[in-house]
């Protein structure tokens, strides 16, 4: 199936993403969910602000999923990333990979999140008690 790629200001819907990749041929579904933590580098975080170059981010995510499909033979994947202001505990990113067997799904999911962090133009600003910082990887 065509991968699902979603960039949105709205809260992410994990169940809908899982439902979208589900299929009778699937034996395992791996989900990674990144959530907003209340601390970073010793600071108390109030909230996060994500900025995204949407059109390019979607293209980059499409390329990453295509690479994962090539390497691990996965056929069903969904990636959703939120931007704008996010509160503590809210999901910023959800990656769902489904495949006939679990090993490929785990590896592909890990590859997708790790690569997304380095090549997709989405930025995170931490707003903490002692000021604001754009986080660099």
């Amino acid at each position, binding site marked *: 199936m065509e991968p699902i790629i979603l960039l949105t200001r709205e809260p992410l819907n994990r169940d809908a993403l899982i439902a979208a990749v589900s299929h009778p041929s699937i034996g395992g579904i791996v989900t990674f969910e*990144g959530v907003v933590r209340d601390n970073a580098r010793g600071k108390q975080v109030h909230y996060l602000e994500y*900025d*995204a*170059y949407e*059109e*390019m981010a979607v*293209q980059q995510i499409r390329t990453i999923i295509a690479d994962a499909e090539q390497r691990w033979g996965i056929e069903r994947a969904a990636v959703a990333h939120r931007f704008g202001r996010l509160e503590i505990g809210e999901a*910023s990113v959800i990656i769902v990979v489904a495949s006939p067997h679990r090993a490929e799904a785990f590896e592909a999911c890990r590859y997708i999140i790790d690569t997304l*962090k*380095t*090549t*997709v*133009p*989405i*930025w*995170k*600003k*931490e707003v903490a008690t002692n000021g604001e910082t*754009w*986080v*660099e*990887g």
Partner: protein
Amino acid sequence: MEIRIRYFASIREIVGQTEELLTVPATTRVTDVRDLLLARTPPLQLVLERSVCAVNRRYVPVETALHDGDELVFIPPTGGGS
């Protein structure tokens, strides 16, 4: 010729706008635009040194020649979180 520059993250906050249209000579490269931005807004220096660039939504080297109607974006480091 005219190019479109879009600003994101820390660069957007420093320049105080999300995008602009810029009229430049026909032989302009990405690096020339970077110099121009730096001359106009010196506080961009630190972040531009650490940024890569994209033309029409693809990563390109700074020597890349620009063409009329191109969309240019300087991309500060990403990768927050682990």
